[in-house]
Every structure is written in structure tokens, then in C-alpha cells.
């Protein structure tokens, strides 16, 4: 080690002052100076430490405080009016520490006497094991906790855990999903919550207090209940396998209500595994039948090649190879576009699609989001079944809703875009304002096309197959759809999927309602018919009558017919 002369001389000065034979006064001053420096250092360290503790102690104590909770605390889920759909309730759970138990037999006897649904053999096995900690029963009642506490068995204890409860039971099951025993979301919005970072928060130990902000959904609990009870009644009345309904706000894409019965109770999620109880609106894909004609007609009107005055030949059935396309309500004459829509002519819509060609048709459906998987907040979604080779025959059948299977929610999104002025808005389960929706929206058809489509929908309720849903005062418009289900590779004449898409009010659209019945049966009062006009449409009428006041749609009476109210307004403004 080589020192520079300067440091060497300083060192020697210090040495001399402390130990050398210099005068005492100088030595004393040096010693005091050293002591001052040493104490100053120590106090600086103490001050620094104090500042550090003052700034960090809060988070440390908070983390220590939540130590007795195992299951994650989850934010509450509220409906659009602030009603509780899902919340956490603290429940005690019973555990044992086998190493500290003195008399296993006595403990088993006492516990099974207090909690009758404990299995004695299993309990004995668990308590005799060599482990330090075993769960005996998750979620016991407060009363049971008190009784067991009074028994005073050593090595038995409680831990309070968060249990998710759904006060409305099955009412919103498919929408919010459910959680597992450890309070982790495994379906619906609950799963989405976990995916949004709740799981990470939990693993860091932060998600154990109740201070998380509640999540507000777009769903309206009252509307949800009204829709569900009408669908349950319809399912029983028409002896259908399943019934589903969806109500969306066409201006924002919010899903105000979504029901698919049979459903399950999220408080008892074992039922959810049953295949019959799937959510048919997002997880199932269906050929939507005539409902799709709305898309075909809109495509034709939007292309500019077809106007409301155009007419198509529906005199003879359309032959295509070995296939023959017929009309259900055959008119055997040349039909105008409004007639094609109200008579739901397969031949007419097929000719419309053929006029524009396969590629145009395909591009239009792609633009309308009907060919890609639709993803929303909830994880359940299904890929549409698109024909691999899309030829003219496919275009012919897809024009009237066969040969392309989509999730009903997807079809609703497409038809909403035809109603709301041509804006395709991705549907959401969360609250959304109109401004936010407009940012996401994509203009897919012109506003003029949208006006014409609303005219056609209203016309259908005035003169066509949707008359039974024309609830007085709400100016309903709608399109029916009856699709034959494929059974063993063939279209079945008796197994039908009927649907009805209604818009209300048709002149200033606010809500779109889809009602779907899976295999409804003909009844004496429906004169042996099982098509949409005899079941889905009247159900929609009942639903609209109950739901419209809840949604705040003001009834208006004595409105002029569609050609004067909707079409006249369009031509005067444009």
C-alpha cells in the first residue's frame, strides 16, 4: 500500500495528537472532536432509520393484519342500478393440527355430534395423520363454530375465509359465472375478474381486504328477472328443450340482459357441468334461419344495386344442382324487396345474394363480424362454423340463414348495427357510455340503409310474421327466424330452432331483443304449427310488455305506419 505524502503527514498528525507527547490541551480537543464526529454519525443513522420506518411501516402492518384469511377477497359485482349480484361473506372454516391432538377418538366423536355432515371415518383418518395441518370442513355456520369452540378440543381451530355468495341464485348464472372453493373465478365475469389481475394481486398478498372497488355490470337485474321468468314459462308451455333471450342497447352495445334456460345456481356450481345447461347465446352456434335474411337484404340495399322498389322473381323454386329452394309462404309471383322481407322468401333473398356474387357476400359477412369468433369479457365463446369451400350454393343457403352457424350474440351484434345507423359495436357486459361506444364503433352500412332496414322490420310487425309481437305503444319491429336443425346430416322437418329479433322503438331504436326457442312443440292453440311466428314472437310480445317500462321506453300511441314515420323522415332529411 503506497500512501501519498499528504495523507501520511495527516495520519501522523492524528497519531501524534492522540498518543504522542504533545501538549494536553491540543490532545483533549482532538479527542472531543473525534467523539463529536462519532456521535454525529450514530445520530444520523438513527434519524435515517426513523424516517425509513415512518414511511414504510403502514404497508407492513397492513400485510400482517390480513394473515388469517386464506381465500381471496373479491370485489362485489353490482348490476347497473347498484343491486348486489355477488358479494363476499366471511365464513369460519374448521381445521385440525393432528400433532397436537391428544385423543383422536374423543375429538371425532365430539365433532361428528356437532357437525352431522362430517364423515367419521374420513375425519379419523385425517386426524391420525402425521401432518401439521388438515382442513376438516370448509364453511361452517357461526352457530357450529360457537358449539365446537365450547367443546374445547385441543388441536382444533378455526380460520375465517371469504365465501362468495350470489343472492339472486340462478337469475344471473351464465352472466357472472361462479368461483371454486378457493374463491378463484372459473366462469363468466368472475373468471374475467381474475384475468384482469386479481390473481396476481392475491399472490402478492394484497387482495385480502374488502376495499376493492366493486364492478358494475350493464345488466339490469329487474329486466333479467322479467326475461327469465317469461322464458321459463315459454319453455314449459311450448315443451321446448331450451329457451334463450338477449336484450342489448343498440346505441352502446351493452348487454342489459342475457338468459339461457336451463341454467344453474352459481351457489351450487356442480350443475354447471351438465351439457344441457350451457349458455346457448355465447357457447352454442346455430344456423339462425330467416333472421339472417335481414343481413342479406341490408347487404343488397347497401350495395346500391338494389332499392326498396326492386323486384325479384319468386315464381318458381330455385334449382341448384340437386337442391331445390322453396318458400315456406310461397307466393309464386314476382316480389318486391319489402314483400320478400315480410313473406320471408328464401328464393328472393337467395337471388339477391346471387346478384351481388359470392365474394361480395363473404366480404360483407366478414365486415359484419359473422365469420370470426366474437370475444367478450366472459371467457365462454364459440367459433362460428363457416363452410370451408364457399361456393354459389353456400351463398344461396347462407342468404336465408342455413349453412353458416354463428353464436346468437354475434347475430345480435350484426343486426344491432343494421338498426342503429350502421355502427358495428362490439357487445359488452360492462357499463359503457354512448361516447365510448362511438369510439369503438365501425361504420359498416350507411345510415340510409339502416333507416330502410328499420322500415322493413316495422313493416314486418305491421303486416308480416311479427304481428303477435306488436305491443301497443312501443312501435316494435322484428324479424322471425325458423331454422331446421340438422339431425344425422339432414335437415329435420320437426326439430326446429325458432327465433325472433325485435327492435324497439323502430323509429328511434334503443333496444334489440332476441328470443330463441330450441325445439318448441306444436300446440293445439298454435294450430299445429311450431314456426317462430307461433311461439318465439308471442313470447317476445310478453317480454316487451314487461320489460319496456323497466327500460324506460316511453309508450307512444297513434303513431303513423312505418312508410310514413320512418321512410318519409329519411327522404326529407336526405
Amino acid at each position, binding site marked *: 500500500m503506497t500512501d501519498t505524502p499528504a495523507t501520511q503527514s495527516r495520519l501522523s498528525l492524528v497519531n501524534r495528537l492522540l498518543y504522542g507527547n504533545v501538549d494536553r490541551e491540543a490532545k483533549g480537543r482532538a479527542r472531543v472532536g473525534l467523539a463529536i464526529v462519532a456521535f454525529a454519525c450514530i445520530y444520523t443513522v438513527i434519524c435515517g432509520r426513523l424516517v425509513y420506518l415512518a414511511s414504510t411501516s403502514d404497508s407492513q*402492518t397492513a400485510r400482517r*393484519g390480513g394473515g388469517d384469511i386464506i381465500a381471496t377477497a373479491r370485489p362485489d359485482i353490482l348490476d347497473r342500478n347498484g*343491486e*348486489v349480484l355477488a*358479494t*363476499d*361473506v*366471511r365464513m369460519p372454516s374448521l381445521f385440525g393440527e393432528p400433532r397436537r391432538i391428544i385423543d383422536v377418538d374423543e375429538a371425532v366423536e365430539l365433532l361428528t355430534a356437532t357437525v352431522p355432515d362430517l364423515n367419521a371415518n374420513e375425519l379419523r383418518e385425517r386426524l391420525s395423520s402425521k401432518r401439521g395441518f388438515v382442513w376438516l370442513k370448509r364453511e361452517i355456520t357461526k352457530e357450529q363454530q360457537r358449539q365446537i369452540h365450547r367443546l374445547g378440543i385441543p388441536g382444533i381451530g378455526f380460520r375465517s375465509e371469504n365465501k362468495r*355468495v350470489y*343472492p*339472486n*341464485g340462478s*337469475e344471473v348464472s351464465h352472466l357472472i359465472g361462479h368461483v371454486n372453493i378457493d374463491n378463484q373465478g372459473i366462469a363468466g365475469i368472475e373468471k374475467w375478474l381474475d384475468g384482469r389481475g386479481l390473481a396476481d394481486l392475491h399472490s402478492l398478498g394484497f387482495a385480502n*381486504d*374488502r376495499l376493492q372497488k366493486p364492478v358494475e355490470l350493464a345488466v339490469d*337485474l*329487474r329486466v333479467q*328477472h*322479467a326475461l327469465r*321468468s317469461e322464458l321459463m314459462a315459454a319453455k314449459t308451455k311450448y315443451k321446448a328443450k331450451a329457451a334463450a333471450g338477449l336484450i342489448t342497447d343498440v346505441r352502446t352495445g351493452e348487454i342489459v340482459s342475457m338468459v339461457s334456460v336451463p341454467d344453474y345456481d352459481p351457489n351450487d356450481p356442480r350443475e354447471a357441468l351438465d351439457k344441457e345447461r350451457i349458455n346457448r347465446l355465447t357457447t352454442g352456434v346455430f344456423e339462425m334461419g330467416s333472421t339472417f335474411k335481414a343481413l342479406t337484404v341490408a347487404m343488397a340495399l347497401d350495395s346500391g344495386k338494389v332499392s326498396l322498389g326492386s323486384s325479384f322473381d319468386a315464381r318458381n323454386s330455385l334449382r341448384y344442382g340437386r337442391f331445390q329452394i322453396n318458400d315456406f309462404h310461397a307466393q309464386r309471383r314476382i316480389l318486391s324487396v319489402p314483400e320478400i322481407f315480410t313473406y320471408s322468401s328464401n328464393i328472393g333473398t337467395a337471388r339477391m345474394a346471387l346478384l351481388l356474387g359470392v365474394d361480395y357476400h363473404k366480404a360483407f359477412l366478414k365486415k359484419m363480424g359473422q365469420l370470426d369468433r366474437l370475444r367478450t369479457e366472459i371467457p365462454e365463446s364459440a367459433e362460428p362454423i363457416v363452410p370451408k369451400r364457399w361456393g354459389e350454393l353456400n351463398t344461396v343457403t347462407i342468404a336465408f340463414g342455413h349453412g353458416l352457424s354463428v353464436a346468437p350474440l354475434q347475430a345480435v351484434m350484426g343486426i344491432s348495427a343494421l338498426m342503429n345507423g350502421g355502427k358495428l359495436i362490439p357487445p359488452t357486459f360492462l357499463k359503457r357510455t354512448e361516447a365510448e361506444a362511438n369510439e369503438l364503433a365501425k361504420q359498416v352500412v350507411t345510415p340510409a340503409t339502416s333507416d330502410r332496414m328499420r322500415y322493413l322490420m316495422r313493416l314486418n310487425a305491421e303486416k308480416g310474421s311479427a304481428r303477435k309481437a306488436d*305491443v*301497443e*305503444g*312501443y312501435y316494435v319491429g322484428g324479424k322471425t327466424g325458423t331454422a331446421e336443425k340438422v339431425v344425422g346430416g339432414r335437415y329435420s322437418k320437426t326439430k326446429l330452432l325458432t327465433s325472433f329479433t325485435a327492435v324497439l322503438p323502430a323509429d328511434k331504436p334503443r333496444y334489440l331483443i332476441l328470443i330463441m326457442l330450441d325445439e318448441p312443440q306444436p300446440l293445439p292453440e298454435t294450430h299445429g304449427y311450431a314456426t317462430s311466428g307461433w311461439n318465439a314472437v308471442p313470447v317476445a310480445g310478453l317480454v316487451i*310488455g*314487461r320489460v*319496456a*317500462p323497466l327500460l324506460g321506453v*316511453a*309508450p307512444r*300511441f297513434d303513431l303513423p305506419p312505418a312508410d310514413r314515420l320512418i321512410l318519409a323522415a329519411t327522404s326529407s332529411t336526405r
Partner: protein
Amino acid sequence: MIIRIIHFCVIVAMVAAATYVYDIKFESTMQAERLAKVRSDIRRERDAVAALRAEWAALNAPSRLEALAKRHLPLKTTDARQFDQLAGLPERPKPPLFANEPDPIGALLSIEEEKDIPTGSTGRQGAQ
């Protein structure tokens, strides 16, 4: 001598400082304990509130209310004709004159001569 006095003062000051520090330390421990207790109380209260809210939601569930209403009330589904706009309501009648007087009729009679003052029963016609 002066040094002794200084030493004495310093010792007294040290003892005083130690007492003061002990007092503060004791106080802060007390406060921390109280804080912990209040925190746990808050948590317990919040859990109780959550349990009550869940119970309220279950009791207030539309399905339960509908079943009860069906059983006990003679109500029917509202018809669209039963709604009306606020603008459709008739005009509110004008408040009678001298409503604040102890003897409104007497007060009205006392100005009987002035015929152009509207009365509660004749309403607008009298005013014109």
C-alpha cells in the same frame, strides 16, 4: 465548581429526557394498540355490513318479491296505456287566495267589491 454545576444540570437534563422519551414510547405503544383494535373492529363491522347487504339482496331478489306479490297482492302487469308523459298532466289548480290567513273566507269577503280577483272555485275564469 462551575463544572460541577454544569455536570449536575446535564444529569438532571438527561434524566428528564429519559423520562420524556419513556413517556412518548409508552404513549405510542398505547396508540398503536388502539389503532390495531380499531382496525380489527372496522374489519369486523365491514364483514357484518357485507353479510347484511348479502342478506338484503337475497330478501330483495326479484324472484322472491314476485312470488310474495303473487300470493298476497292483487296486482297485474302494467299495461302501456297506464303510463303517461308528465306533460300530459292537467295544470295544477291555483292555490286559494288568503290561504295563510287565519280566516281565509272572511278575508275574501272583506274584498268582495273587487270582482276581478280570482277565487279558488272559479279559477282562471275569474282572472280573465
